């Protein structure tokens, strides 16, 4: 075993030990240490021994914490979802498609050895490609994904990935940053100090205390990388850490998603197909971490000049500075490596499949059923209507009004014509032509407001308030609260409507509630008499 390997292992052990020590008892920070290692060490996928689903890391999530579930349900049903966490898109309802997608989730869920939380597929009016999941178990499937995937296996791969984020509690990362930023910085600082102590000796031969590096060349890489990363975390806060952590969560979701789809009898090669499509969708982009590191390189070097504490630690600082100065180039590889890219995720996943599922990985995808369903008379015309509405939006942005009108008119002949996404496009086309009354009637034609986005609610509530119809505004706000699970979002409008109705008790109550929302309180204050 090479000295480098021994050093890497020692670093890994000390990092993990320190991180675990510092993160002990902090439930929201599970995974922070793994994220650190994902940046400075080998990939998540290559470290997994056996099938990911069976590892201790995953087994800890088999059992649902009833308190946690109840807290999430309460949030979702009890109007306590923070405004920033509310879905932003209109929901699309095509019943056979909905049943089909929910069925895939059910089939995937049977492969989960633990207790399964409630998972609900929602098709959204977006032509992005990637699905997403929220902590309440909603799996959002954009129309752009359905437009591009060619087999049920591909859909299963992407839904399995999103389910995995929910099953592995990945949304806790956001909470971690809100609550524990200081702890993270302490972890990073301690990690670098531990590395320094482990690799630094004291030379007394010259008669004075002098810190020396036991293995300057070997230490350069580890210290350089650790110091660089630590400097980033300390100086530039959560941006890079959060990205790294997110990266490691994507890797974990790829692994668990693959396990689930294979258990459900799907062809794992479809996961590779979807990652290739994601790569094509995103195009060639610079690594997020790479560009961040480049931007911060100069700032980091400047910040180093301020690292003066006292004479005793000066020698350590010098080493630290040298480590950072020499390590910037070497460490850059960690930030700039294309580990962020879908194609690298694909490569890592294929290697995992070859290691763990050599027998199953060649199974062919079955494209027939999905393509038949997509082309069926119960689904195809509705999907086409949404495509037409999308084309109308594209035409509008290109200032092709006549074309936009034609596409919108066609969308309005479909069975989904009264759904929010279709009427939203028609609203825009009318507004672009100055037809305000017609535009308003598009919004009034929406039949099921439970599918509407916050933006549509906003438009309609504002209209009712402008028209001096506070009762209609309040009725719609009540619907928005039920649908979106948040009282915060329209609390200012609710206050305004109650003022118009001269309901002082409600106004007082709402004013008190509003003061608790930092982003709303100023708006409410303006409405209230001094």
């Amino acid at each position: 075993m090479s000295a480098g390997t021994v050093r890497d292992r020692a670093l890994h052990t000390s990092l993990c030990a320190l991180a675990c020590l510092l993160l002990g008892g902090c439930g929201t920070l599970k995974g922070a240490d793994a994220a650190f290692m994902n940046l400075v060490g080998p990939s998540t996928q290559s470290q997994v021994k056996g099938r990911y689903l069976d590892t201790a890391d995953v087994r800890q999530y088999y059992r649902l914490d009833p308190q946690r579930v109840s807290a999430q349900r309460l949030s979702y049903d009890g109007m306590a979802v923070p405004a920033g966490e509310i879905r932003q898109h209109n929901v699309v309802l095509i019943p056979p498609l909905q049943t089909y997608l929910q069925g895939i989730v059910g089939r995937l869920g049977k492969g989960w050895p633990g207790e399964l939380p409630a998972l609900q597929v929602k098709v959204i009016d977006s032509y992005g490609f990637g699905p997403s999941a929220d902590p309440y178990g909603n799996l959002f499937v954009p129309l752009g994904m359905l437009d591009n995937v060619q087999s049920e296996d591909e859909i299963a791969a992407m839904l399995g990935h999103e389910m995995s984020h929910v099953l592995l509690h990945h949304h806790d990362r956001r909470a971690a940053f809100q609550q524990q930023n200081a702890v993270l910085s302490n972890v990073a600082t301690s990690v670098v100090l531990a590395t320094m102590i482990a690799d630094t000796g004291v030379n007394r031969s010259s008669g004075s205390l002098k810190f020396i590096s036991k293995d300057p060349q070997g230490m350069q890489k580890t210290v350089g990388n650790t110091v660089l990363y630590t400097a980033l975390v300390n100086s530039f806060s959560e941006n890079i850490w959060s990205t790294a952590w997110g990266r490691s969560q994507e890797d974990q979701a790829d692994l668990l998603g693959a396990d689930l789809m294979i258990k459900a009898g799907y062809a794992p090669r479809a996961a590779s197909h979807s990652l290739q499509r994601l790569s094509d969708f995103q195009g060639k982009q610079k690594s997020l971490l790479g560009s961040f590191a480049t931007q911060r390189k100069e700032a980091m070097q400047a910040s180093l000049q301020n690292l003066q504490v006292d004479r005793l630690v000066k020698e350590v600082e010098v080493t630290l500075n040298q480590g950072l100065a020499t390590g910037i180039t070497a460490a850059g590889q960690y930030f700039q490596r294309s580990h962020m890219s879908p194609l690298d995720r694909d490569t890592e996943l294929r290697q995992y499949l070859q290691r763990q599922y050599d027998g199953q990985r060649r199974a062919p995808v079955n494209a027939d059923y999905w393509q038949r369903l997509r082309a069926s008379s119960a689904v195809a015309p509705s999907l086409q209507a949404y495509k037409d509405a999308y084309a109308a939006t594209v035409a509008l942005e290109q200032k092709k009004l006549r074309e936009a009108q034609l596409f919108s008119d066609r969308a309005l002949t479909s069975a989904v014509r009264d759904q929010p996404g279709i009427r939203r496009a028609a609203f825009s086309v009318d507004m672009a032509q100055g037809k305000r009354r017609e535009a308003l009637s598009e919004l009034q034609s929406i039949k099921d407001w439970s599918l509407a986005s916050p933006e549509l609610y906003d438009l309609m509530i504002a209209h009712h308030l402008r028209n001096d119809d506070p009762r209609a505004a309040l009725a719609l706000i009540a619907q928005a609260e039920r649908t979106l699970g948040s009282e915060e979002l329209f609390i200012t409008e609710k206050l305004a409507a109650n003022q118009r109705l001269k309901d002082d008790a409600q106004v007082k109550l709402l004013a008190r509630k509003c003061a608790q929302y930092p982003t709303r309180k100023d708006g409410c204050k303006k409405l209230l008499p001094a």
Partner: protein
Amino acid sequence: MTRITFLLLAALCSPSVLATTVDAYEADPLTLLDEHGKSQGRLPVKDAPKPPLQVLATHPNLDQVQVELGGRKVWLDTMDLRLSEGKIVTTPCESLPISQKADTRNASTIGFGSGCSKP
């Protein structure tokens, strides 16, 4: 030669097939297949020619491509390979209208992958 045969030949020799190359091996050893996907043996990557290799034909239903290895034409599973042309989408991110690029998500969601860089 019938018209259909001509069209099939034209499709097989189309620039898209001829332009595709095997850019890397993603498995070791490689499994050599016949045109029906049946295994014909294994080949360690160290004994395979260095990529890029020209793809001679494709079999989309079986996810196979034909290449020449050591003077012999063989079929390989695309799971073992990185091809120059992968699976694609019809609406790449850059072509989305501005309103869709902005494509706001709720802050709490975790997605399959991030969107494209905004212009």
